[in-house]
């Protein structure tokens, strides 16, 4: 496997030494290590990356919070219950239907929603759902995009023609519109492809939709890069050695795409989380009663301004998470590709 390497001096002060002992060797630094070094210097990216990791850990601890702190479940309705706040007994949902605001106590820490459910608990479970869908969608996008990009860029000709036109068809539809159309159809009937069967209210439905919708956005830049890579000498050398197409694609070309893929992953994760939230907001994503930040934002709109926490809290969580991933993604891109050749066009 041939990988382009970058050599940087390790002598203090940098730069080439005045004289070089012929028996001393200059150690090369791999591109990943170099990228990590650059990323480490980017404190802003690391801070936001830490924020994102904190969000993920918090959401993963949702069952612990629900059971041991809030003593409820994400779907339990407490409509006619009362809680004690500051010594006063307060209705979780008033007789006119207004939910209680943040109590800053273990129960209803961030208030209740329109069904008397604990917002903090639903926020964390919603985060799990949103992050799960984002991650699975990103995985689907990257796997499919790599395969399509590799086949298109390597074989060119009719294969490229067919695959590129297929990508163009998907790309022609605005991602949100296509997602809504698919989401509405699949939410009721689910997805049945014979071997694979997904229920309509499964989280996999929005994950598959978001994943497929974003394939062209990644496949096209990858294809462009592969078109350039296949003309390099190391590919000719591999062919001369008698390696087959698959061996060349996955053994020679793909490793050279690794840094690009690594750059694209966090950016696509942010996009996927946002698209899922948008679909759920419009009722075409996560199906009730499963929580999702997008669903929570949509449900809370009619309580502005009386119970603004119902829409504000999930909105802030969504913003912080996507911001964290985006800034981290920018940092990773700068670390791998300072000249920023790779961009994801939306």
């Amino acid at each position, binding site marked *: 496997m041939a990988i382009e390497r970058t050599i940087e001096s390790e002598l203090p002060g940098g730069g080439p030494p005045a004289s070089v002992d012929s028996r001393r060797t200059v150690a090369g630094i791999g591109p990943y290590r170099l990228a990590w070094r650059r990323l480490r210097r980017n404190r802003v990216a690391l801070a936001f990356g830490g924020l994102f990791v904190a969000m993920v850990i918090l959401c993963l601890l949702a069952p612990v919070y629900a059971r041991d702190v809030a003593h409820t479940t994400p779907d339990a309705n407490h*409509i006619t219950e009362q809680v004690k706040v500051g010594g006063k007994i307060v209705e979780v949902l008033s007789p006119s239907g207004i939910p209680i605001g943040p109590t800053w106590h273990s129960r209803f820490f961030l208030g209740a929603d329109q069904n008397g459910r604990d917002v903090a608990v639903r926020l964390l479970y919603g985060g799990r759902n949103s992050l799960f869908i984002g991650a699975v969608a990103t995985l689907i996008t990257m796997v499919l995009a790599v395969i399509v990009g590799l086949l298109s860029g390597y074989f060119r000709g009719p294969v490229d023609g067919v695959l590129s036109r297929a990508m163009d068809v998907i790309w022609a539809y605005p991602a949100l519109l296509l997602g809504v159309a698919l989401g509405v159809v699949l939410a009721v009937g689910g997805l049945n492809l014979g071997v694979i069967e997904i229920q309509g209210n499964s989280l996999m439905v929005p994950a598959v939709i978001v994943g497929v919708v974003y394939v062209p956005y990644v496949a096209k830049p990858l294809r462009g890069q592969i078109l350039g890579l296949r003309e390099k000498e190391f590919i000719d050398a591999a062919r001369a050695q008698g390696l087959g197409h698959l061996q060349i694609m996955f053994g020679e070309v793909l490793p050279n795409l690794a840094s690009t893929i690594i750059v694209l992953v966090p950016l696509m994760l942010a996009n996927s989380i946002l698209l899922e939230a948008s679909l759920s907001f419009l009722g075409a994503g996560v199906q009730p009663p499963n929580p999702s930040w997008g669903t929570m934002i949509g449900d809370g709109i009619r*309580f502005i301004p*009386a119970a603004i926490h119902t829409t504000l809290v999930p909105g802030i969580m969504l913003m912080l998470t996507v911001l964290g991933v985006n800034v981290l993604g920018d940092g990773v891109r700068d670390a791998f590709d300072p000249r920023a050749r790779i961009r994801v066009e939306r």
Partner: protein
Amino acid sequence: MLKSLRLLVAVLLTVTLAGALSACGSSSKSSSSTVTNLMGTAPDYLDPGLGYTTQAAEADWIAYTGLLTYAHANGEAGTKLIPGVAQTLPTISSDGKTYTFTLRKGLIYSNGAPVKASDFAYTIQRSIKLNWGGKSFFTENIAGAEAFDKGTAKSISGIKAEDTTGKITIELLAPYGAFANVLAFPAAALVPTGTAISNLSNNLPPGVGPYEITNVVPNQSFSVVKSPNWSKDKIPGIPAGHVNVDVKIISNTQSEAQQVLNNSADAFDWADTLPAALLPQIQSQASARYSKNPTVSTFYFFLNTKVAPFNNQQVREAVMYALDRRALSRLDSGFQTPACFFLPVGMIGHPRGACPFGDPNAAPNLAKAKELIQKSGLAGASVTVWGETRQPRREYVDYFASVLNSIGLKATEKIIADATYFPTVGNLKLNPQAGFADWNQDFPNPSDFYLLLNAKSIQETNNQNFSLVEDPHIQSELAVLDKVPSTNLQSVAKRWEALDEYVAKKAYVAVFGYEEVPKFFSQRLNFGTAIFHPVYGNDWTSWQLK
């Protein structure tokens, strides 16, 4: 001569100009003003032969008139039947089985075509073939209608119409006390013979009425404009109307209410729920143009009695014990009275006794509910609960699913668009296990509500008996009670009460409340003169600008 010619041209020009100006002036005086009515849900069908939701009826009843119609009045006065396209109320034979009408002379449709007596027979045939949700009112009562429905007859033998005399005779299989009310349905309102037997909601057939429905954009908007072929006093008791109405479908009730509050739109659909967050503002800033009105309506969850787990009486009883009706009232911003009986307050036959499974205004009995589920052996049974996207109906279903889960069942939800909800759950192929439903009175007779529990009303599509109730006791009681004329209902009130108490004990449906609805307008509309009709809600013919 040239001078004379110039003078002539000048005079002619002046006259023409004056004529044009006066035409402009007079057309602006005679043009109707337009008000904007916002609806949270689109009508299921605007085609009068198919429509069966309040949104559809609200528009259809002033664009399509049947042999009979309702008085345009508030309260009980609005439940009085008056002649529509018929000259007078029917002559009913002594055995109650023959209804005779004579068509008014000189009536024309909105497209100018003359109205004929034979159009009535065609209209009923069309509604049956279209599978109108209430077609059992025709097929179960009119002689020959069932045979026509099944395809074994080419026409309905029980309807005879003579175009020359305008005489229409309807033979019933047996006396049906509410039959006159059935003839007031928009589905029985006349359309021309030959009107296509397909859903014409986007390109409506002509009708007889003060208004026409035009500019239909499915699920988005439509206009209800004053019919140029309708003149004042054309049919006594049906007013000509004052304004045109542009109806816009706004699925966001927050936006809907805000627009009316801000006077950007003129009316909030009474069938929608005012957002709780805006209520205090509306009550303080718009008290002169807002009121809460009780309706004769029932909100409930249907429980499919043909499939597990609700084919088990113990499971159904468990649901009754577990349901907290006070909670559902709060989800409706307090616009609901907790209840347990199927016949609502205001309907003859509403029981006055205690609810069989506990006071609806008290806390539920979850322990008893869980015990019943365990006894039934159906703990862990899967249930899919169907609901609409519209708030708070989706919240009702969220709550109901959580209740089912809390008592030991395994409930999931399927939420679908409002406009397709009832046609979807009314499709027998789907066989939904449970879901939200509601019913507003079509006419002041308990048999209207019992369409939903009548085994004979079960049909393949547009079914309204969602629980698929087939109870011999209900059928035998309806066979007697349905014969009683609407004018004599008090004589059988106790028997209706007993039947309703029986239904409550059988727990075929999980009733949770009777609805109050808002009458909420902009400052433009004259609130005091606007009629809130007991059957059709806002009476658009009574709307006037201040």
